[in-house]
């Protein structure tokens, strides 16, 4: 269908993006791969030497490594589950006619505007603190023992904080998608006596499929590198309960300034992230090809 001419034009228009991203990827990535084979600590200049796979062995045998993978997956999975389901429901609600729709929408989107460090500080100190936090006051108000969230449910707490930040993103994308839904189709289905549940599963959900795919993929990318929230609330602990891969790389790169090990960790992280991405594409990639 597409002509030869438009094909050429298509390639031409794609090329700036491809070239820029190629440069952005190749230059730091090749430097990172190079550094990952060096013994290179920023704080000990002049001692750089080739060490082969030593950095990789060091990073992969870190006692926290497997915990970090598990925590990364749980964090990504948990937040995705909460935000896509919550976001779909919320988008459908916000799509309904109501008074003050504009204000409601901006209120819902607002958490996305808050810097991660700030939201983590606010949640940690003003809500989850077991002595002075609002949750503790609520619990005491109804006669319960306040829960020490960050000590006894650390990963769960971080999932909640991160979900709060990303729910608006999911809602916004899904809401925009909902608005291109053909309302006549819905009304026709309603006339034919289709139940609301039926209408949701056979009309709304298929229509949202691609938007949901976008939400999942884009969020996955950001969630894999969640970091500020962990640093502020638990510093990766207690133990390794909230250490994710990014935090492990951080410890190597900005605490140890061990560029070699940090680069090896970065390479490992990008490989694992791509495995997750390919896995995701297999699962939901169909939605992109309609």
């Amino acid at each position, binding site marked *: 269908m597409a002509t030869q001419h438009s094909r050429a034009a298509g390639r031409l228009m794609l090329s700036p993006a491809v070239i820029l991203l190629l440069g952005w990827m190749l230059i730091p990535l090749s430097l990172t791969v190079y550094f990952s084979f060096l013994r290179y*600590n*920023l*704080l*000990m*200049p002049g001692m750089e030497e080739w060490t082969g796979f030593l950095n990789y062995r*060091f990073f992969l*045998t870190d*006692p*926290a490594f497997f915990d970090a993978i598990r925590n990364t997956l749980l964090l990504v999975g948990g937040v995705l589950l909460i935000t896509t389901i919550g976001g779909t429901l919320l988008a459908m609600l916000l799509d309904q006619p109501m008074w003050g729709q504009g204000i409601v929408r901006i209120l819902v989107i607002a958490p996305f505007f808050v810097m991660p460090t700030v939201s983590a500080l606010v949640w*940690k*100190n003003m809500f989850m*603190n*077991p*002595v*002075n936090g609002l949750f503790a006051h609520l619990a005491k108000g109804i006669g319960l023992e*306040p829960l*020490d969230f*960050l*000590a*006894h449910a650390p990963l769960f707490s971080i999932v909640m904080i991160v979900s709060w930040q990303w729910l608006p993103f999911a809602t916004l994308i899904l809401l925009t998608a909902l608005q291109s839904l053909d309302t006549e189709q819905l009304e026709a289905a309603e006339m034919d006596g289709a139940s609301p549940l039926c209408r949701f599963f056979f009309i709304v959900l298929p229509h949202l499929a691609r938007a949901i795919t976008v939400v999942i993929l884009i969020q996955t990318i950001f969630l894999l590198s969640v970091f500020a929230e962990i*640093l502020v*609330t*638990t*510093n*990766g*602990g*207690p*133990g*390794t*309960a909230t*250490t994710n891969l990014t935090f492990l790389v951080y*410890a*190597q790169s*900005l*605490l*140890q*300034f*061990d560029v070699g090990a940090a680069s090896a960790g970065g390479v490992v992280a990008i490989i694992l992230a791509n495995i997750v991405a390919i896995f995701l594409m297999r699962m939901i990639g169909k939605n992109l090809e309609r």
Partner: protein
Amino acid sequence: MGTRFAATLASAFLASTALAQAQTITIATVNNGDMIRMQALSEHFTDANPGIELDWVVLEENILRQRVTTDIATRGGQYDVMTIGTYEVPIWGGQDWLVSLNDLPADYDVDDIIPAIRAGLTVDGELYAAPFYGESSMVMYRTDLMEAAGLEMPEAPTWDFIAEAARAMTDRDNEIYGICLRGKAGWGENMAFLTATANSFGARWFDENWQPQFDSEAWATTLNFYLDLMEDAGPPGSSGNGFNENLALFQTGKCGMWIDATVAASFVTNPTDSTVADHVGFALAPDNGLGPRGNWLWAWSLAVPAGTQNAEAAKAFIAWATSKEYLELVAENEGWSNVPPGTRMSLYENPNYAEVPFAQITLDSINSADPTNPTVDPVPYVGVQFVAIPEFQGLATAVGQQFAAALAGQVSAEQALQSAQTLAVREMTRAGYID
């Protein structure tokens, strides 16, 4: 031709920046109260030195540390004056990354700097940073609660007394916890406190051959003492509490005692922020009859990175900000209790300053810490609550996570110490200290 053009452009650019920046110095500093005050008072410096302009970069401690370390190690050249601590100075000074301050003018009176602090900032006879304020740690306690418990705090308490008092003061129904201590994982958080405490129990990080010592009896005693005490008399959520969290607890009247930085004294006695300002007493950090007390030593200091174009202007600024005159300037503007503490002997000889309730105890605490000989047994490293080697930040944070897990009740003390030992052996082997 392209390269020549670029070269011309670059040299033109360099020339113009050199000219424009000849007298503008960029100062990177921490957002703590004393530095904020320095920034506010810096007009006095620029008025006296019309040729020098100041650009300020004020950041939170962790971010500041990663910024300045990255910049100095890569020779990024973004700053002319850096605020660093006693941890960085020995490492950076040893790499020749800092400009020596031995040539400060005579009226600066370098001999007036408190010897313990000056020693921590000197490498091979070169002073590499000038102390802006110094701190140690001490016991802060509620005089009213202590009295109600029928106890009296000695000037130099033992750990046994602290434990007894903490348990006696605890009243969980009224949300009064006998003792608040750091628990949040981090080399500058729980590990600063625990390392200093371990010194007083005779424990050390490494023996003279850099063998990690977490499998020693002394560490087991330290950790078990800490965990039991926090279990019986600590607030809930301790494993997330750092300096600021404990400060908030103490100021709202939830803590009977708090062992932390001496600078906290001015916060807890300040009636606008603290509900318990009238009932705070101070004592030296506890000991265990072995000699060393459980207090640390830290000084936020100003240093000039090697390679800066503006070394002279930077030195002039440092000489002003850490001078005796600056202390008087602060006293004039903000009162004696807001003067940056712990840097100069003359301050403590000043009768006006002696009236500040925490003046003497701060000096005594600073003087009782010895960075070169921190614990009972000899050690190969410098530092009281840290070990001044580049590997320490990452290692101590990982170890701190283990201890926080033990405090949260997720692992036992033995497991935490075992993991700590494994981590330390692994890290020290990688870094080549041990085989």
